[in-house]
């Protein structure tokens, strides 16, 4: 057993494709669902693949392209197989209809994706009546199962999933009363605000939140209020909105119970592993990619990152990855919330850093500096927190620190 990839979403499939393309014989993808493709199966809208396939595909079409390629290349799959344990020597244990299986691969890629933050995690008080769903669950119920949810819908959170679901519910004939966003700006792409809200006359209320819900058996409505600059509800602005459905689009959390089991060093900001430019975690031979590493805006970036992780995993297995004796720290400077990777091992012709901004900057400049000396600057018309940036640069001389900042 050579390479074991945990998760059969776009990250896992892309990693498997790259490992086989690089000539690795034995590549296994372990997926707990009965089918491959991960979350993309339920993302039936357009907007995937513009970078990787140079055409605009829907989610299922994007994942099918990866599945077809992986099958053609002879990637092995275990489906309905959930990895329940991993040890520091990389022994991976999974349960499947065949029972319990343990194997010890030469390297592991963690590609478990992420899950949605739930109602409990943000603590909205009120009755536990039916009609409250996370936006992703609602997406699956409507698109994959054909369920009809409610007729009067309120959405909390203006991230892209919330916006996409606002349009989806409108197309299903529901009355979408509004999208409420606690921040003073939307967490989603302007494109999605235009095409998912404005097209359907759905209002967006910024600096607003849902304070409580009403309804013991079924949802009868929600209370909403304006918030101050500290995101605290302003009491006399609270009012009641009758509705039968509340969708929560309040963030994604990388799914990393397995990583923490073997004490992989984790980033409190991304919720994913701390990795170097090889996308290798603090445990040698354990790599991470996709939403399990950090939440991505575009699946195209997931594919590119996973290619890199797999290429390095293959080198590791072949003993072509010299152990890192020292490394350059990457620090997020002004305007940068986090970077991936967080460290660079010297000797690569080119480095790629992904990052997200902490605010809206327009127009602006991305500056990369090594020990205080500028090595690359890129002019941008706009950088917004909901879009991930990827920069590439050459590091000619050894450095202690590389800093990424937005000026």
């Amino acid at each position, binding site marked *: 057993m050579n390479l074991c990839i945990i998760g059969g979403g776009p990250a896992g499939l892309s990693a498997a494709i790259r490992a086989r393309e690089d000539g690795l014989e034995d590549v296994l993808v372990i997926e707990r669902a009965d089918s*491959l493709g991960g979350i993309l199966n339920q993302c*039936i809208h357009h907007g995937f693949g513009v970078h990787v396939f140079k055409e605009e595909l*829907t989610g299922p079409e994007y994942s099918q392209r990866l599945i077809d390629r992986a*099958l053609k290349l002879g990637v092995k799959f275990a489906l309905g197989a959930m990895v329940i344990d991993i040890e520091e020597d990389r022994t991976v244990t999974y349960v499947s209809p065949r029972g319990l299986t343990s194997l010890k691969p030469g390297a592991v890629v963690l590609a478990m994706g992420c899950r949605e933050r739930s109602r409990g995690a943000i603590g909205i008080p009120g009755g536990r009546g039916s009609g409250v769903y996370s936006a992703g669950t609602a997406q699956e119920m409507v698109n*994959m199962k*054909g369920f009809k949810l409610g007729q009067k819908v309120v959405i909390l959170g203006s991230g892209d999933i919330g916006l996409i679901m606002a349009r989806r519910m409108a197309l299903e004939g529901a009355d979408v009363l509004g999208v409420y966003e606690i921040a003073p700006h939307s967490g989603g792409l302007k494109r999605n605000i235009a095409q998912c809200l*404005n097209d359907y006359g759905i209002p967006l209320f910024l600096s607003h939140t849902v304070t409580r819900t009403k309804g013991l058996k079924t949802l009868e409505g929600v209370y909403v209020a304006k918030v101050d600059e500290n995101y605290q509800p302003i009491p006399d602005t609270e009012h009641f909105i009758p509705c039968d459905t509340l969708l929560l689009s309040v963030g994604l959390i990388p799914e990393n119970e397995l990583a923490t089991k073997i004490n992989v060093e984790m980033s409190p900001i991304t919720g994913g592993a701390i990795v170097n430019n090889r996308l290798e975690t603090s445990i040698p031979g354990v790599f991470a990619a996709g939403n399990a590493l950090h939440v991505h805006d575009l699946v195209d970036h997931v594919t590119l990152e996973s290619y890199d992780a797999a290429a390095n995993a293959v080198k590791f297995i072949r003993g072509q990855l010299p152990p890192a004796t020292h490394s350059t720290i990457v620090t997020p400077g002004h305007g940068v919330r986090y970077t991936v990777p967080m460290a660079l091992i010297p000797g690569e012709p080119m480095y790629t850093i992904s990052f997200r901004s902490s605010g809206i900057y327009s127009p602006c400049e991305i500056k990369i500096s090594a020990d205080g000396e500028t090595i690359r600057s890129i002019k941008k*018309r706009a950088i917004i927190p909901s*879009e991930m940036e990827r920069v590439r640069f050459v590091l000619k001389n050894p450095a202690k620190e590389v800093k990424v900042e937005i000026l």
Partner: protein
Amino acid sequence: MTEITCVSCPVGCLMAVTQQNSQISVTGNECPAGLEYAKEELTAPTRNIATSIKVTGGHMTMLSVKTATPIPKSKIMAAVAEIHKITAAAPVAIGDIILENVTGTGVNIVATREVKAVGFAHTHPLF
């Protein structure tokens, strides 16, 4: 005067668009793409849509579908109503035409995922 968000790129300029006779002028756009987009939005706005319909005899019960090319924005709700009346039958391949000429737009509705006929699940090595 109409306000339009340009969706040509992620900057998303908020543009003020005015129309006098056939003359369309735009302010607030940072590049020429804004004018082109505004012209299209004012004269003939189009959109892609995607939804799911029932499918019988397959390994799944719902089939995702899309417009093969964009349709006029004004036809969206009528098109969705027409699409939702259809039930497909497995097997279905990606790209199969599910409905021709939706609401007279000349645009076909095509499948965006594969649905195998039942029985497949027991013979295919992946399932």
